[in-house]
């Protein structure tokens, strides 16, 4: 007991004891932190998206842009009564995620019948292994990622994120130290000037190798289970569209989707970029709720039109949709 007390004595200056205590403290703190509720992103990533409810007929997949930009209940109004739509788009994700999500749903016997895939095109260029491994995947899936030829260090970092609460929530913890809140956006014109556009929106369209690998796996998996994928490109701001023109972003993106349409059961629902005005956005890429309603309405009308021409589906669009179809 006296020896134990001596460890904490001010007379004890043994550096090795300090390192030992530090390691123990880190382990205790991380275990204690892990009992804290996860943040919204982690909660969203960890939600078991296969166990609740019945099998959806239509499932929306994508990132935060699709999550807030397509309203599932509204879209269901354009389909026949027995058709259900679920929005499973997850914020902060990219094209490497749907494979894992669909795989889980198939394993649980809850795979959707059709998928509306609405990615943000810029997400194809960068990978998010830390979020994927640290927040989303289980150990079996991590092993699959590690054995897919991805850099081991990236997987190691992801695993570190998975085991360390602090690392996983570092962005949120950093925010706690920001005393000054960001000022409310001024209603200036233009509200979203090109000068403040983030570099990630001003790049050519490219598909990162890891993303490409798991996205193709997703398409293959969907095809194996006869799940058609309806491709949707979310509306963009004119300034975003303009800044991408020098890189032929849109042409390359269309070529990419066209290739997918030829190889897999990918169908064009709203492949072309459409421009929405500045007042329709809450930032450079996310639609506000009014614009989301307008876009869903547009999408619903188009969907009912597409479905009415689709030989494989026998259904009648509801009157509401027929009235508003272009």
């Amino acid at each position: 007991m006296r020896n134990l007390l001596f460890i904490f004595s001010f007379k004890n200056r043994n550096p090795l004891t300090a390192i030992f205590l530090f390691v123990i403290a880190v382990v205790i703190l991380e275990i204690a932190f892990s009992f804290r509720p996860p943040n919204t992103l982690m909660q969203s990533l960890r939600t078991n998206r296969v166990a609740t409810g019945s099998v959806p007929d239509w499932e929306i997949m994508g990132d935060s842009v699709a999550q807030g930009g397509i309203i599932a209940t509204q879209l269901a109004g354009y389909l026949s009564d027995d058709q259900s739509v679920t929005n499973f788009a997850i914020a902060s994700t990219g094209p490497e995620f749907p494979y894992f999500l669909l795989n889980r749903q198939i394993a649980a016997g809850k795979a959707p019948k059709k998928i509306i895939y609405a990615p943000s095109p810029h997400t194809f260029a960068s990978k998010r292994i830390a979020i994927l491994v640290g927040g989303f995947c289980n150990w079996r899936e991590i092993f699959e990622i590690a054995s897919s030829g991805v850099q081991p260090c990236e997987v190691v970092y992801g695993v570190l994120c998975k085991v360390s609460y602090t690392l996983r929530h570092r962005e949120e913890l950093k925010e706690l130290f920001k005393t000054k809140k960001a000022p409310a956006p001024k209603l200036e014109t233009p509200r979203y000037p090109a000068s403040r556009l983030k570099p990630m929106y001003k790049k050519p369209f490219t598909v990162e190798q890891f993303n490409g690998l798991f996205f193709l796996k997703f398409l293959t998996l969907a095809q194996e289970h006869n799940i058609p994928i309806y491709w949707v490109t979310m509306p963009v701001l004119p300034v975003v569209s303009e800044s991408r023109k020098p890189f032929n972003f849109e042409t390359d993106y269309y070529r990419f989707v066209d290739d997918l349409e030829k190889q897999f059961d990918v169908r064009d629902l709203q492949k072309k970029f459409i421009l929405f005005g500045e007042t329709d956005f809450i930032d450079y890429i996310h639609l506000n709720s009014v614009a989301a309603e307008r876009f869903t309405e547009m999408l619903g009308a188009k969907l009912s039109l597409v479905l009415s021409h689709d030989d494989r589906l026998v259904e009648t669009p509801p009157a509401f949709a027929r009235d508003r179809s272009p």
Partner: protein
Amino acid sequence: MLFNTIQFGVFFLTVFFLYLVLPHKWQNRMLLVASYFFYACWDYRFLTLIFISTTVDFFVGKWIYETPDRRRKKHILFWSILFNLGFLGFFKYYGFFAESLRGLLGAFGLHVGITTLHIVLPVGISFYTFQSMSYTFDIYRDELKPTNNYFDFALCVAFFPHMVAGPIQRAQSLIDQVTTPRTISKDNFTEGFYLIIWGLFKKMVVADNMSLIVEPIFAQSSGFTTGQVFIGALGFAFQIYGDFSGYSDIARGTARLLGFNLMVNFNLPYFATSPQDFWRRWHISLSTWLRDYLYVSLGGNRKGEARTYFNLMITMVLGGLWHGASWTFVIWGAYHGALLCAHRALQRFLPKISESEYPVGAIIWKWARITFMFGLTLYGWLIFRATSFAQLAEMTRALFAFHIERSTVSLCAKILFYCSALLLVQFWQFRRNNLNTVRESPVLIQTAFYLACFYLVLIFGVFDAQSFIYFQF
């Protein structure tokens, strides 16, 4: 492979565990292979340069030692220096001198077509060239006996912790450590651990966050305000210090875990009271190298007052040029040379306040000198970091316009936020006049220090590994 990446962590752990199980001779061989692999991760093509430099200096060292005639020794040394500096000059300075000559001739109306080659600068060439040169210098001065084992010498030059950015270790001290069996003692382990975690904190929390503040300021070419210039200089002062001393600490820490003892490279430089004191605290391995091999060789202070000033200026200008092929580095060197000369000339006029007679006065005087020297250092960093003379002139003009905007205060607070832990620890070290203060403090304080560093790195560290500034030198 940067020190602040998981790749390096994996690499080092592999080396460390292999090191633990191998006998001494094989430890050295394994370290040599690991060091070459470490370097090859940047650019394997430049391994040839290290190999040539190592081989030439190894045999030249032997040749000098075996030559009895002093004049002949001098000749061999001369050719060896010419070879090493020729290598360095070609890869680092060819483009710079070609461009400068073309500009100079152009000013006189002579338009000469000088071929400029787009040469990639090999990482760490200045460091390992100086490291290798010190070996032949020491043999020439009869301060060192050449080693007979080529691989041991090759390891001294290429030892991965210090290969790309120093500390520029003296050949004597490193050869002794390579040739004698090393032990991984409790002391080595704890000091290594302390240095690594402190170095990572300096690099990832201080330097990389300062870089986010500083880069946009120096990206401008005009329209500076006094506040911006001040923030730019202050931020860069902490960026370069955190970056380079962080690198040195990690280098020393990893070497220490392997049983090696590399020299201290930084000793609280921003607490310097004079230019002379600053250079005793900043990049110590380079400043002592320049002092011992250049300043002393030029005659040092043994050839009269005027020659001393000349030698100081030459040493500092060449020291500035060593940092990079740009006139701003030359001017930075000249600026520090001028400060050293001015201090030397004015030293006798400066009041000497006895600490025992006037304790309060002595403290005030000391802090006044520290503050003044820090101000001079800040201006030096402006010269160092400026992208062009035009930018430097603009910034200097803005500095005296005394226009401080509101954002300066918030940026100052941001700098203080990221640097407060560093300043606190360094102030403590300065008060105790001991760099080991943390490791010698009670266990609870040490633990709190490690926890603070660890969590600050985890939360505030910049994780998209930024390269170390001194790698470009």
